[in-house]
């Protein structure tokens, strides 16, 4: 008999105390898994007003009911914590063997608190849990540390998550890396791990992953493999992956260029666009058991050195390419590798380096060694990345994130510090698709492109990109679909590409749980989950005044491209926020209404009402 519960392994890294607990079915099932469990658990487990880098903060590694099965995109895990970059709800997704390994070991959630007395790593093998010394790993980059641990504990079935120097140095752009090229990157989750003196997590196991009907799961997977083989969308995704997005955004005039001063980057064509990356592609890679493997393997020569990388993804091409005025694919690959090894978020890194370049060009930097830095200077960018991870010179300030850096530099630089709530902008300029502005403003973790992807309707379909009225409803639909996928927890690429509908995912969940789920059931859960995540931020002091955008977006029109001259401004944002809060059942201040909490059965004092 399948039980839809979350089996939690909790470890206090300070005392060494471990515990096993279960989030019971009446809470676990209405929140599905992954993102839902993360929202519920952070609200319930973390006391209010905790310093994110203190031992009291809690770091969750979460899976979902589909994780580790052969169902599409089930090789993902989620890190949830209170973000040191924002002080808000933080959710950061990644892929890698850590996801199935946690379940092979018999757990769905790993919950870490406390601070180890010395550099350590956590070793979990089924029931065996031990904190081991990482004295010899501390200071190694993420690749070196992972290789050392894999040589000790296995390459094929062992889950490994590591931080690089950035995490050790509490950089607010620090990632948690796994399988070398995969990162839980956003919100500074690597710094939280570093603050706990935790260099790595190693997990292996031999337990059964609970499924109600393994034959039904296998039959569905087999059918989907056939579907992928004959799906043009899936084949395109396998050939180009996320690189194809750069052609879409560059055409639409929403490609961040030179710190969002422009939205088109003509130099990208043939170099860092899909065709440019195709020229350096030598193979493909896939996440765990993926039926639509979409990562590329590239090879470039740079300074007489052969660089090989799994990537680059679209966000990297834009944020470390066009956003820095760089069109040389080998320079982007070099920066991507540097970030992977240092454990730096390529998105936030692209924003802080772009911000520094603009400050230098405007003569706002007091550091004389950097005042000649200009957009397009890849060597300077590479040096800055290293300085950020090691907190040297200006890098020490940039390591605090762009919001803090602008505060310190002042002189009007706040206007072009591209962030929301302290989380740096991803690679879509909201002035070229107004729905993007709403999403950046309201996602709990700050400026985020993962909770919904408005270009799907504003660029690739017929929703008017430069209107604000009615946008909230469209965005909410996209958002809720993603919430469902991120709670199951699966990759969100199969849904649009194969395509697979939400009713298909309801079937997958039904096969796994033995309880018949419908798309409507999942929709109700999505609403419940988003309001619960909002409750956490409200409790931590966030409100409507924090759902705001940088002045550059509100007041400076894009100079060129299809979106030239388009602005929604604060008035437009207010219209979208009013509509959005209303469709969510929140009041005009963005606080969930009592009747909304009651309707979705959301308790505010721990556990499900």
């Amino acid at each position, binding site marked *: 008999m399948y039980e839809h519960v979350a089996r939690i392994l909790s470890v206090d890294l300070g005392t060494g105390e471990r515990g096993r607990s279960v989030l019971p079915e009446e809470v676990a099932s209405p929140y599905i898994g992954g993102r839902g469990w993360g929202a519920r658990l952070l609200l319930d487990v973390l006391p209010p007003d905790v310093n994110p880098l203190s031992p009291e903060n809690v770091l969750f590694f979460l899976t979902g009911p589909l994780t*580790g*099965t*052969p169902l599409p995109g089930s*090789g993902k895990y989620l890190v949830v914590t209170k973000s040191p970059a924002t002080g808000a709800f933080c959710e950061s997704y990644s892929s890698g063997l850590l996801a*199935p390994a946690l379940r*092979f070991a018999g757990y769905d959630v790993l919950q870490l608190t406390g601070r180890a007395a010395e550099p350590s790593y956590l070793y979990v093998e089924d029931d065996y849990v031990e904190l081991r010394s990482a004295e010899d790993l501390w200071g190694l980059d993420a*690749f070196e540390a*992972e*290789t050392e641990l894999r040589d000790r504990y296995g*390459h*094929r*079935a062992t889950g490994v998550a590591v931080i690089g120097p950035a995490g050790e140095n509490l950089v607010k752009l620090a990632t948690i890396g796994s*399988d*070398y*090229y995969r990162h839980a990157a956003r919100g500074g989750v690597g710094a939280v791990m570093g603050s706990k003196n935790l260099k790595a997590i190693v997990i*292996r196991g*031999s337990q*059964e*992953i609970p*499924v109600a009907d*393994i034959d039904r799961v*296998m039959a569905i*997977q*087999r059918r989907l*493999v056939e579907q*992928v*083989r004959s799906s043009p969308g899936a084949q395109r995704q*396998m050939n180009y992956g996320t690189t194809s997005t750069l052609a879409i955004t560059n055409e639409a005039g929403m490609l961040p260029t030179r710190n969002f001063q422009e939205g088109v980057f003509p130099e990208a064509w043939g170099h860092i666009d899909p065709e440019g990356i195709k020229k350096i592609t*030598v*193979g*493909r*890679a*896939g*996440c*765990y*058991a*993926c*039926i*639509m*493997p979409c*990562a590329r*393997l590239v*090879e470039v020569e740079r300074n007489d050195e052969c660089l*090989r*990388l*799994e990537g680059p993804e679209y966000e990297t091409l834009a944020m470390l390419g066009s956003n820095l005025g760089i069109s040389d694919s080998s320079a982007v690959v070099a920066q991507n590798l540097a970030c992977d090894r240092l454990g730096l978020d390529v998105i936030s890194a692209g924003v802080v380096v772009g911000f520094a370049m603009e400050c230098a060009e405007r003569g706002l930097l007091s550091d004389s060694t950097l005042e000649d830095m200009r957009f397009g200077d890849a060597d300077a960018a590479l040096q800055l990345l290293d300085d950020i991870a090691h907190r040297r010179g200006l890098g020490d300030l940039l390591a605090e994130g762009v919001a803090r850096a602008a505060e310190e530099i002042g002189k009007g630089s706040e206007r072009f510090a591209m962030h929301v709530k302290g989380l740096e902008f991803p690679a879509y300029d909201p002035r070229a698709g107004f729905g993007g502005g709403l999403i950046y403003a309201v996602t709990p973790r700050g400026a985020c492109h993962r909770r919904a992807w408005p270009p799907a309707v504003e660029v690739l379909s017929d929703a008017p990109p430069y209107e604000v009225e009615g946008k909230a409803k469209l965005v909410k639909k996209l958002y809720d679909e993603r919430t469902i996928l991120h709670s199951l927890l699966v990759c969100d690429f199969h849904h649009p590409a194969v395509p697979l509908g939400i009713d298909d995912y309801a079937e997958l969940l039904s096969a796994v749980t033995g309880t018949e789920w419908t798309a409507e059931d999942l929709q109700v859960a999505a609403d419940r989950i988003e309001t619960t995540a909002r409750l956490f931020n409200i409790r931590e002091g966030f409100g409507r005044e924090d759902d705001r955008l940088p002045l550059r977006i509100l007041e400076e029109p894009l100079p060129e491209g299809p979106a030239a001259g388009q602005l929604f401004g604060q008035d437009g944002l207010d219209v979208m926020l009013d509509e959005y809060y209303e469709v969510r059942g929140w009041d005009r201040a963005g606080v969930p209404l009592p009747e909304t909490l009651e309707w979705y059965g959301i308790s505010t004092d721990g556990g499900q009402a």
Partner: protein
Amino acid sequence: MSEREIRKLGIDVEACTGCQACSLVCVSEHHGRFGLEVARIRVHKNVPELAPPRFKPVACRMCPDAPCVAVCPTEALWQDEETGFVGLDEDLCIACGFCEEECPFDAIWVLEDLGVAIKCDLCGGDPVCVRHCSTQAVSFEQGGTAQKD
């Protein structure tokens, strides 16, 4: 159903993406659960270097005059003269590990817990890994005058 010749798994290292779906469904087929450790087809990944061959699925190659069969002291391992198929009788296996040492491809493994060796058995003629590989990096190579039902 008439007889058909059994051959071996064909591997296309260029098509392999390292996703390990083959291993996962192999464990599901043979052990009735999801896992990777006890797979009979295993993917070697050359990471983070990524020099070719980057991802390499490894399973029994059904060698002519198979060396594992030659060293097996209990005749648990046997080879079909006509098809070249190398089979393993688990009841006879004593988990001595000679086969594992002798295999030139690292494609037969002893499971200490269960006290047996494991290797690819081609799922009785319809390999599950072939059916579930989305990039068709694993194929079923059948020679001769194969007949299906």
